[in-house]
């Protein structure tokens, strides 16, 4: 049976830091940064991380289906918030996927996502690979300029596909172009990485793949090679005989290179515009290489994700405060005030009781009176009903609503004041006092429409934990 890609989705944080802001703050030390000062890079809000972006990308992908349920979920990143608490399971619960699921974290490599995608394509189940990356780079570094934060999701398996999996090839070799053994990456000279790394390892892998598949390099319509080295993809393409026009742009000046998420982000972007019959070559580099070859089918134009790469790319807002970027990435020690000093302990047994609410955003719907409500409690909330144990589980994660009341609170502690919150009335019933995220001053009032999003609610730096919950965003 044909296997291949059945859907795709993406998420890029709204905030786009102007690279000129980084240059302005750091050129006194490294004047060479000026040559990279054009364009922008995506940056996570303080309440976004690898998991929250992954949820957005996966939801964007699932929005293109009618009731698709992946049997396996691979989550790829080098920046998981938890070293030991399976991040893919948090992702699965935020997506409210059934518990009968193979969930797996794939980490420690820039080709984590491509290796996971190969494993999925070579298996027998339908599933989804979600890749997400939120890398921290040292202040004033080239990496800080060139990297971005983003996530992407690819659904793959058998049945009708958008792009047929033609073949794959992997190569493992411990070529250490960079590594991360501590807080930040450490890398070697760019020219050496290009000449001895990309230009040798990628062609070796790709040529084996093309040979096995009986495909000529010149027939490749889209060539994806994730890298923050602008000149490397053309050099590799030339060496392999791939048409330079087939090279997919790494979006360094609009999004930034998103690490382990970059291969799937560019693949999703390519799938948005590919034509039936197009050959798509995806090569990912890192201690070797994964190369995957796809052929777009006649169904390629039929899939419509929630927003897709182009939609999330277009939904950006300019951020010009480098100080905010430093703060959000924990690159500077800030005075957060005494109100920030309160204990942020999460009581895990209590959390376990409330996972339906906190992670999956499930409330209840009363069988007696039909009232939707969140949180779901023992007695129905309708004052004219109050029935006991009468509620079925009811999802609010896919609901929209309107703002009833709101404020911008400058007294309470918040990582990015003022704290916006208010009462939300959901379409179809149910009401909840919620935090708002991504609020632009003057953009909110009673009656504003909202959608809900899985975000970080609080950090507990004392214990290395973080709390997530759903927040409202003005549509």
């Amino acid at each position, binding site marked *: 049976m044909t296997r291949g890609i059945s859907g795709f989705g993406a998420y890029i944080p709204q905030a786009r830091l102007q690279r000129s802001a980084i240059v302005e703050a750091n050129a006194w030390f490294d004047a060479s940064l000026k040559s990279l000062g054009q364009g922008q890079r995506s940056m996570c809000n303080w309440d976004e991380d690898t998991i929250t972006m992954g949820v957005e990308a996966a939801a964007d992908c699932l929005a293109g289906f009618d009731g698709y349920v992946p049997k396996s979920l691979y989550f790829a990143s080098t920046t998981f918030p938890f070293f030991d608490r399976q991040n893919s399971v948090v992702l699965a619960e935020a997506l409210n996927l059934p518990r009968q699921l193979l969930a797996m974290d794939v980490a420690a490599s820039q080709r984590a996502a491509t290796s996971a995608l190969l494993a999925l394509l070579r298996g027998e189940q339908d599933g989804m690979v979600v890749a997400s990356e939120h890398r921290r780079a040292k202040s004033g570094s080239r990496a800080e300029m060139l990297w971005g934060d983003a996530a992407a999701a690819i659904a793959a398996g058998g049945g009708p596909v958008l792009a047929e999996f033609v073949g794959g090839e992997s190569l493992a070799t411990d070529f250490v172009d960079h590594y991360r053994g501590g807080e930040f990456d450490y890398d070697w000279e760019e020219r050496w990485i290009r000449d001895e790394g990309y230009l040798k390892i990628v062609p070796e892998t790709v040529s084996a793949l093309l040979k096995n598949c009986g495909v000529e390099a010149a027939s490749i319509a889209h060539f994806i090679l994730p890298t923050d080295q602008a000149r490397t993809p053309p050099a590799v393409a030339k060496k392999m005989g791939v048409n330079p026009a087939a090279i997919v742009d790494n979006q360094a000046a609009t999004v930034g290179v998103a690490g382990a998420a970059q291969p799937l982000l560019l693949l999703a972007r390519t799938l948005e515009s590919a034509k039936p019959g197009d050959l798509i070559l995806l090569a990912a580099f890192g201690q070797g290489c994964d190369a995957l070859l796809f052929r777009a089918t006649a169904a390629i134009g039929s899939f419509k994700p929630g927003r897709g790469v182009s939609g999330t790319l277009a939904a950006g807002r300019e951020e010009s405060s480098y100080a905010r970027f430093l703060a959000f990435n924990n690159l500077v020690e800030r005075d957060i*005030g*005494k*109100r920030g000093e*309160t*204990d942020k302990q*999460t*009581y895990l047994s*209590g*959390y376990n*009781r*409330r996972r339906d*609410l*906190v992670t999956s955003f499930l409330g209840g719907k009363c069988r007696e009176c039909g*009232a939707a*409500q*969140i*949180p779901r*409690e023992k007695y129905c*909330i*309708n*004052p004219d009903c109050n029935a006991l144990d009468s509620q079925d589980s009811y999802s609010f994660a896919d609901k929209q609503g309107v703002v*009833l*009341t*709101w*404020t*911008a*609170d*400058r*007294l*309470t*502690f*918040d990582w990015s004041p*003022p*704290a916006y*919150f*208010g*009462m939300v*009335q959901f379409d179809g*019933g*149910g*009401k*909840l*006092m*919620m*935090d708002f995220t991504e609020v632009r001053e003057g953009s909110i*009032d*009673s*009656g504003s429409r909202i959608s809900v999003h899985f975000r970080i*609610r*609080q950090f507990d730096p004392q214990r290395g934990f973080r*709390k997530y*919950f759903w927040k409202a965003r003005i549509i």
Partner: protein
Amino acid sequence: MAEGIKDKVAILGMGCSKFGERWDASPSDLMVEAFEECLADAGIERGQIEAAWFGAGIDAFHVGASALPMAIALRLNYIPVTKVENMCATGTEAFRGAVYAVASGACDIALALGVEKLKDTGYGGLPQRSRGVENDMYWPNLSAPGAFAQLATGYRARHRLNKEDLKRAMAHVSVKSHANGAKNPKAHLRREITAQQAIDAPYIAEPIGLYDCCGVSDGSACAIVTTPQIARGLGKERLIAVKALQLAVSNGAESGHESWDGSYLKTTRIAAQRAYDEAGVRKPAEEISMTEVHDCFSITELVTMEDLQLAEEGKGVTAVLDGNFDAEGKLPCQIDGGLKCFGHPIGASGLRMIYENYLQLQGRAGPRQLPDPKLGLNHNLGGFPHQNICSISMIGHM
């Protein structure tokens, strides 16, 4: 139908500490200050008190948990002392305990005292604190101004008001209270302000600005209550009696059910009607002489006037700007300066408000004395507009 509390219990004496940033005063010092005045006013000895109710609102570490801090501070004579906590309604809750004990016949003389030491936090505003294991997982990190600012947005949306008109009325609420507080030696803030100052002040939580917020201070207030017969036996004349004592507590409907739109305080409406029924009040706007209401924020006072049936629904802005609740108005509100000028030491406020009405009814309010008041209403609101505790007490001449 129970016959209610009306005229069953009299106030024998009351006391109130100076409110303010009492850096040098411990909770015990504040309690003693209020208690000494109260004992002297009542004209009894400490040993005649048979039971006591102790109110302190916020975290045990400010005053200490249980009834012990009060029993020890006042050297009470191993009598039953009950600690009560019901957010901003705490002071009135202590009063309710003492009044009900006397009314039941369980004791003849009972003490109610509230205290709060807010200025040991190291920063302005109420202390940032946990909402509990489960609530902390999903509640916004809302401050008190952040919660009540939403009453303004909800009220404005419901009545289709523009921001400027509502803000002008909110400013008037604060200007009036500052003018009253300036005349009160026990108030914390004793400076008059202008409407423009209030309007121009920086936002704390939009649209609540600095002058829309009540102060934050330390303080204590207390009452000794007994039966009318015993009060008369102790030589008291022209007794001040409890006319109504009501409490309404949200059951979650406001926060989760669409039947409430965020534009009013449901508990206040319920508690007010019950209190009027208990006191036999048919026309509150005509029968009540003065009110001390929970002006934690200017918007709360404005909306509360409607919820107490003292202004027509949706017409609070006009009623306030017309001066109805000013010192010289039809129905003076916060004649002592209110929470606005006293600040709001949580556990003490309810009793502080009763204290002012008690003084006014006795003609002992000095330069701020109202002409011939007969019936005073006190209103507290603990928690947030979307889930709260409302207490209403009414006192008047026997």
